[in-house]
């Protein structure tokens, strides 16, 4: 990727982070930590990687698809969807408020463009993505299905049912990501319920696993490109992203404290000072 393009994408990610902080502050509650940590991935997917139609179609035929399994980081997805042009950025103001299409956890129930499946109750997105990938095969499409999961989410049993299925049935048009920030609500994943080693676990299930820094856009992009080259090679693909919860806001990093807590006005001001406004706030 050219330096100029990289800088542009980093600029978008900075705006997305501003959106996240301001949306959560505006709502008075929400999940900023994980959302900030995944801003680089979602920016890259929607602005660089995914082959997608400009106008949203629920059926998603002949385009790449993205599913968010860890639905609580909805703020980052809403921001990226709005900034990608699926709906007006002004609608970000409504997140988590009454009569909004931007529910606390994402859903197609309110017919928000960009969202094809509800998530929030954890552990279901990998199965859903596998289903969508199977349909792409039946429809003879060569497009890719992407899904993002949390690392704490790996404690859900359904994930491993899905992991087993994807390898057994050679679902090789699927690239899954794990937001490996090692934090969950009650503390670090190591304390609460160790999920390690995720790499060994998925490899032993028959997946092709890549690892990278999920907050280094250049490295993340090159890893996605490596993984994309393996599409069609009989194995499901996994990118384990080492991320920092709260990335981009110094006082939110290195702690699980900001998993599900909104910054107050003063904290928000402090956060926004660290994030450049590149596309204009909503």
């Amino acid at each position, binding site marked *: 990727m050219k330096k100029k393009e990289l800088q542009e994408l980093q600029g978008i990610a900075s705006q997305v982070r501003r959106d996240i902080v301001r949306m959560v502050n505006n709502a008075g509650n929400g999940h900023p930590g994980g959302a900030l940590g995944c801003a680089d991935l979602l920016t890259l997917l929607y602005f660089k990687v995914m082959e997608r139609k400009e106008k949203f179609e629920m059926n998603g035929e002949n385009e790449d*698809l993205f599913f968010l399994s860890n639905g609580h980081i909805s703020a980052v997805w809403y921001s990226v969807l709005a900034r990608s042009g699926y709906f007006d950025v002004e609608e970000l103001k409504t997140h988590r408020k009454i009569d909004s299409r931007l529910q606390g956890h994402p859903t*197609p*129930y309110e017919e928000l463009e960009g969202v094809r499946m509800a998530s929030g109750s954890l552990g279901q997105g990998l*199965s859903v993505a596998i*289903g969508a990938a199977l*349909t792409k095969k039946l429809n003879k499409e060569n497009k890719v299905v992407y899904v993002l999961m949390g690392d704490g989410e790996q404690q859900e049993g*359904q994930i491993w*049912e899905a992991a087993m299925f994807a390898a057994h049935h050679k679902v090789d048009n699927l690239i899954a990501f794990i937001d490996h920030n090692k934090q969950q609500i009650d503390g670090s994943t190591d304390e609460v319920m160790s999920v390690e080693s995720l790499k060994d676990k998925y490899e032993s299930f028959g997946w092709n696993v890549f690892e990278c820094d999920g907050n280094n856009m250049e490295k993340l992009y090159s890893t996605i490109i490596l993984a994309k080259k393996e599409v069609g090679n009989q194995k499901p693909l996994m990118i384990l992203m080492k991320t920092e919860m709260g990335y981009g806001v110094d006082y939110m990093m290195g702690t699980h404290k900001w998993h599900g807590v909104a910054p107050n006005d003063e904290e928000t001001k402090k956060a926004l000072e660290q994030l450049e406004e590149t596309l204009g706030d909503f």
Partner: protein
Amino acid sequence: MKYSFSEKKDTRSGFGDGLLEVAKKNDRVVGLCADLTGSLKMGDFKKAFPDRFFQVGIAEANMIGIAAGMTIGGMIPYTGTFANFSTGRVYDQIRQSIAYSKKNVKICASHAGLTLGEDGATHQILEDIGLMKMLPHMTVINTCDYNQTKAATIAIADLEGPVYLRFGRPKVPVFTPDNDSFEVGKAVQLCEGSDVTIIATGHLVWEALLAEEILSNKGLSVDVINIHTIKPLDEKAIIDSVRETKCVVTAEEHQIFGGLGESVAGVLARSFPAPIEMVGVKDCFGESGEPDELMVKYGLTKNEIVDAAMKVIARKA
């Protein structure tokens, strides 16, 4: 006896044959099964359409999620496993990934109720109708014989939206017409009468017809309604009948809590209050035994329907 049958067949075979037939007509139909292909009679479908059949293994939660995902891009997934594993085990997956996400999945459930038999209470779900009917947008169907199950299996492919299709294990009388049309949400009037209405679903429909014969011999005139669609419920058919008879008996192979009886009672309480008696399982679990023995022990036969009818007629003012 107003109805007769020439043979007994299992409703699950109606599902298997219906699936094969609908798949021939509609190339969007796919089948998923959680290690019960034989029990669900999905073998012929699997053989005819190997590329459209997905063996999920003993992983029902994953099966529901995959089915939901497969609708994106236009497939019409039919999932197959026992009723217990089709509902209670995967309730949250159905709720979030299918119902709340408005996905066009057909959840097809065999071995519902006591007539699962010898495997016992772990597998004899008697709460599934209640679980499914509470979910917004979920259509709930419980068929009574082979022909009706086959017709329903075919019909639901054309109904956009989630469906729970419930059927059973044992061979039961085939008394509805072959190739009869199946209209989702439309009650089927089997007998017309003026003294009492009997509203039954699933395996209890045949028992309701046997009860009608007994009551008829006592000089009573009985309305018998086959409710194959519990949600959306044909409220008009129920109210029209009870307006005439002024009392009603419901019969189902399900807990009385959350079942057809409660739905009927709700309709009547809102629109036309009338005495009601419910034949169903009364807040207990089942046990191992032969299907017929269990239906007798738990009070799900023509005799209980007759008793309930006499009781409810006596309650009429």
